[in-house]
């Protein structure tokens, strides 16, 4: 193994760019390198909301990838229970209307709690690598920013000390990698670059941009395609040229439909996420 993996990989990008597929594929790839990698999703939806973003279907298709789904309420309960030394009290607190309203109104608060839980898990198991299938772009930034926002809010006390500790690890470039996925359009690339700039303003994190569903490797097949398809390809090549300094790699478009086949199609590109 010629590389030192990070402990936490945050996959982000706009909806539909292939976050779930690529983070699952990358987890699988890490496991094939004999690393103890786990795929992780967070539910930031209001407590007790039935709408979960949990990709059950995709997970079934991928079969044996270990996965963890963090529910905000459980994380909150665990945290408060640790701080107050009573799980009974903590159960009661997270069920109060006050607490729910607070978390609903201040989504950043929920992020701090869940990110704290993720860091705890990494701390408890020094071998563990977490691949986080994070919320869409703006919100991944909110997630990264939340901890420093709340550190500013608290200023002192137990939670403040905890956020300090969290920031030290979360914002360490050796610890955390941000992987931004984008589509081969100018607008989408532009936004990825803006996201990268914002992330780096926050902390000097190892942030890389990847172009997904790239038709570049299909150039030969597209040679007799209708004009519209060829133009699509040439626009894509223009975008790749324009942003070549920002792009870490392209992941080829996979024409397959099953998870196993898709994995084989893109496998050789996955190392670049390290």
């Amino acid at each position, binding site marked *: 193994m010629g590389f030192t993996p990070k402990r936490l990989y945050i996959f982000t990008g706009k909806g*539909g760019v292939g976050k779930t597929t690529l983070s699952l594929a990358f987890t699988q790839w890490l496991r094939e390198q004999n690393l103890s990698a786990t795929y992780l999703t967070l539910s930031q939806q*209001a407590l007790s909301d039935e709408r979960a973003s949990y990709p059950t279907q995709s997970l079934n298709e991928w079969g044996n990838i270990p996965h963890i789904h963090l529910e905000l309420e459980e994380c909150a309960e665990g945290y*408060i229970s640790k701080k107050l030394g009573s799980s009974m009290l903590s159960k009661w607190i997270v069920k109060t209307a006050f607490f729910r309203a607070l978390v609903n*109104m201040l989504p950043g608060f929920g992020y701090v709690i869940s990110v704290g839980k993720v860091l705890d898990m990494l701390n408890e198991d020094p071998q563990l690598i977490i691949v986080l299938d994070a919320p869409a772009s703006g919100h991944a930034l909110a997630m990264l920013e939340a901890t420093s926002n709340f550190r500013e809010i608290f200023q002192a006390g137990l939670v403040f000390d905890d956020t300090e500790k969290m920031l030290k690890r979360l914002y360490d470039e050796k610890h955390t990698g941000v992987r931004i996925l984008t589509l081969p359009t100018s607008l989408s690339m532009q936004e990825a670059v*803006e996201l990268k700039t914002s992330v780096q303003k926050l902390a000097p994190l190892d942030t890389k941009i990847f172009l997904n569903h790239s038709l570049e490797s299909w150039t030969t*097949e597209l040679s*007799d395609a209708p004009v519209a398809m060829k133009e699509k390809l040439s626009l894509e090549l223009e975008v790749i040229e324009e942003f070549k300094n920002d792009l870490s790699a392209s992941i080829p478009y996979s*024409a397959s439909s099953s998870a196993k086949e898709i994995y084989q199609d893109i496998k050789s590109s996955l190392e670049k996420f390290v």
Partner: protein
Amino acid sequence: MKIPIRSFDIFFGTGGVGKTTLATARAIQLANEGQRVLLMTIDPAKRLKDILGLGDDCAGEIKTISELPEIGKIKTPFDALLMSPPKTIERMGQAAGVKELSQNRIVEVLARPNGGMNEILSLIELQSRLESGKYDCVVLDTPPGPHFLDFLDGLEKIKSFFDQRFVEIFTSLGRRAMEQPHKGLMSGLIDKVVGAGVNKLLSYLQKVTGEKFVEDFLAALEVIYRSRSSFVSGLAMEKKLCDPLQANWFLVTSVEQGKFNEAKEIQLAAAKKQRKEMFLLLNKALIHQLESWNPEAGSKAAKLKESLVIKEKNLRDITKTHFTGLFDFPEIMASSPTQHVKELALQWSHHANSN
């Protein structure tokens, strides 16, 4: 099918599908047909600012657009507003006569662009813009949420925040504030707050977070409560936005990013709001071009074609059961965003005026 003109056009959809570009094109089409339009967008993409000729300093301020490069003069100049949460907070404070609202440290942090209050604040901003009576039609690009329905949930959040128990705490805080306007407003207050469980809860909170936070937090609650009329005004929007005679709902999805679950979920959520009518805008459609392609059977090219066609067909199929209508927007082969918007505006005009 024609697209009716309503007081609101709301664009839903996960980011990156062309929601903002389609909304901007729609605003231009309506304005060119003589409607008085407000385009409200929350998208932070710089390129849109470029199309509209807006600088960074324009965030949160109304800017009237009468002419655009490549597109030319707009028949009825329209107003554009890029949401800026801190500006909204500032205006709310002024409207409620609570200038401390924007100065409160906690409120300030939360109102940052990624602070998490985007949905709620854009509803409030929308309501206050409507009260001016200046517009026939508001085109609203919903914020890019982790979930596209978060926008509508913003209303629920306001409701639950100001629910009965909260009102109790606030009332007691408010009374306290009236009695001692100049003294350390919140000191010792926690012990005096009535309401079952609340003081216990706050004292636990204090144990974990420290006294300073609880004080700041109560001060934030107090200013928010005193400005509650501004928050609650956002609630009036719910009825209007859910009424099919007042609002068009557009779910935007692009062929490359087709998400079937999205369509199903919005259907479920719409049903909860007693809402049935919804249009699907299918952006970057390619199927008509693909049909003329005949790669050799069994070749790699054939596999590529098939996978692209299946993706798009699946998307079209769901519209039969879940949507009032489907409108195609073909993939625009131009690299300039202004050219994109121009051609999409023509497409809108085609959809709006043909049967």
